[in-house]
């Protein structure tokens, strides 16, 4: 693909609000996970909760979008000057030429879960103040973002579970390549809710302690929440040192609804497609941000795919021990982590992981370390989801 400029980016997770907080935590190899005390949930698990989400007030004309997921969307947009960069892009290109491509797995379903506790005792009806379209629907965060910036062009939500906000980069790159838009707001937002906390618990995929990706004793995920955004534009005038999106690769497992292909075949296809798209060889990659959910099956399958393609040549880590698994936001959160690693010259470690699984033959980073100046020009990020949906992205630094 033709490289695209990532002209602005931001991430908000349990590590903190914005790039500086995220970078500080990653450099210190610090985790933001805490024991679960979300809402009325009583589960023996840890979560990555974002501070002050519910203190966020949406602009008054958009109050019908109010729910935890759109509060976090708003909080994320208003971080690191991202909204200002978007407004400048709208000034350059026009309100119909900036597209919105956002990923989510559950959007604002928490709003519906809470509304079901307030059903009319006689009729069973949901309360008057519950708005399905602008809270529950998968498109709600994209429509909120489009209205927030008074945009008039293309918008879509992508919802492929935990690969959602990686796949938005590929979808936006297509429209930029076609010339149907001149800039794209891409990203992902997912917030804690009862469906995912109880759902992953029902699958016995949540850990009773902070998750330990790629550890021999890993026993499940820690669910997190997050909002991460990037502004994509054509790279004609990219300044030296800017972050570029260089390649995207998508594939399907065609195997099982909630288990990965045991040999990581779909994962391997996605990484190979991303390398082809970027016209790079495996040896060019200086860091891999793994999907690394810390379930026994995911890390084993992904580890096999990475080992097959990269041997032990490329340092890798999952940052989910720091952020938790932010589900539909994970692709965008980890894209931003790759951008930070590339611009600031460090390779993130893996808080929580202590004793690596000897069956997985990759160069896994337990501790954060400085990048070799020559080696970390390109980073690859993996995101895989339920239903066997895989996406790999490659980012680089403009020379």
């Amino acid at each position, binding site marked *: 693909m033709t490289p695209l400029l990532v002209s602005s980016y931001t991430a908000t997770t349990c590590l903190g609000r914005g790039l500086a907080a995220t970078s500080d935590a990653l450099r210190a190899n610090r985790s933001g996970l805490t024991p679960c005390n979300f809402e009325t949930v009583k589960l023996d698990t840890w979560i990555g909760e974002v501070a002050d989400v519910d203190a966020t007030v949406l602009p008054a004309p958009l109050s019908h979008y109010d729910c935890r997921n759109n509060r976090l969307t708003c909080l994320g947009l208003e971080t690191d000057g991202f909204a200002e960069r978007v407004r400048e892009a709208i000034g350059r290109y026009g309100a119909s030429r900036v597209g919105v491509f956002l990923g989510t797995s559950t959007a604002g379903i928490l709003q519906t879960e809470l509304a079901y506790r307030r059903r009319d005792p006689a009729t069973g009806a949901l309360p008057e103040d519950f708005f399905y379209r602008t809270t529950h629907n998968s498109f709600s965060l994209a429509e909120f973002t489009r209205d927030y910036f008074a945009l008039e062009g293309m918008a879509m939500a992508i*919802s492929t579970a935990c690969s959602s906000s990686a796949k938005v980069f590929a979808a936006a790159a297509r429209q930029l390549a*076609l*010339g149907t838009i001149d800039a794209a707001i891409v990203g992902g937002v997912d917030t804690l809710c009862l469906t995912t906390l109880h*759902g992953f618990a029902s699958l016995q995929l949540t850990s009773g302690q902070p998750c330990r990706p790629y550890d021999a004793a890993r026993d499940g995920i820690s669910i997190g929440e997050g909002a991460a955004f990037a502004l994509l*534009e054509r790279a004609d005038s990219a300044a030296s040192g800017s972050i570029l999106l260089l390649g995207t690769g998508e594939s399907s497992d065609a195997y099982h609804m909630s288990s990965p292909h045991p040999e990581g075949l779909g994962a391997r296809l996605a990484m190979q497609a991303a390398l082809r798209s970027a016209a790079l060889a495996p040896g060019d990659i200086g860091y891999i941000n793994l999907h690394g959910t810390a379930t026994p099956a995911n890390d084993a399958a992904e580890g096999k795919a990475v080992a097959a393609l990269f041997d032990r040549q490329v340092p890798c880590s999952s940052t989910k021990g720091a952020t938790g698994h932010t589900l539909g936001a994970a692709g965008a959160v980890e894209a931003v982590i790759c951008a930070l690693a590339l611009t600031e010259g460090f390779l993130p470690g893996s808080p929580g992981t202590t004793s690596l699984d000897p069956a997985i033959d990759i160069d896994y980073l337990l501790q954060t370390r400085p990048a070799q100046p020559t080696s970390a020009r390109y980073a690859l990020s993996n995101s895989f989801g339920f239903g066997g949906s895989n996406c790999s992205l490659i980012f680089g630094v403009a020379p």
Partner: protein
Amino acid sequence: MSSCAQPMALTAWIEGVGFIAPGLPDWVSARSVLRGEQPFTPAPSVLPPADLLPSAERRRASRIVKVALATGLEAALQAGADVSTLATVFSASGADGHNCHALCEQLASEDRQISPTRFHNSVHNAAAGYWGIATRSMAPCQVISAFDASFGAGLLDALGQVVLDQQPTLLIAYDSEYPEPIFSKRPLPDVAGVALLLSPTRSARSLARITASPTARSADPMVDPALEAQRLSIPALRALPLLAYLARGVSGEVCLDYLPPMQLSLMIDSLPPC
């Protein structure tokens, strides 16, 4: 910025159509109604069994999975496409509404231990996941939601894949109803699905070439008030004005609802039926 001076045309050949809507169980019956050969009589949508799936999954397949698989397969078979290698774009306003209701009801109760199967079936990409398992296709699979604009959003991404990757792509737009109490907040009356097999090259099976561009015009309505009611009540059926052109084998320009103020103008170059 100079590189965007010449946008690429969003164009593809339609090689096959799959269709299910209330009173219109497949493309052949829809085509005769859209040609005016048969009157339109609304009736509950009829869903064929999900023959693609293994027996255990087939028995449990939800209405939204059935409509997506059936319409997708109908379009692919018409086109003679190999489903095991086909790139797909699924687009729907929402996922399985009945499953969603059951989960929300249980999560509002004392016993929150939801079923793991209900949970993995709750994802927006459940139908796409079952399609992949059934067809063994490891090709890229996109799953979009854009509320009432879902057909247009899916069409834009599918056309983009056809033009850029120069390979056939199957677009499946589909929706299913919620039971009460969500039904009152999102009153989709029934299930419906529209599938289009889009190809970069013309073949003996090509029905028409379509070329999409943005417009601020209002969408073209259906002349028949009952069909117009269908177009407006189920997001996937925002495609009906396009399908009317395909059914009649005529050329022209049609405007479909997308995301106001951005609507989609489609230039349709129909080929005479073989």
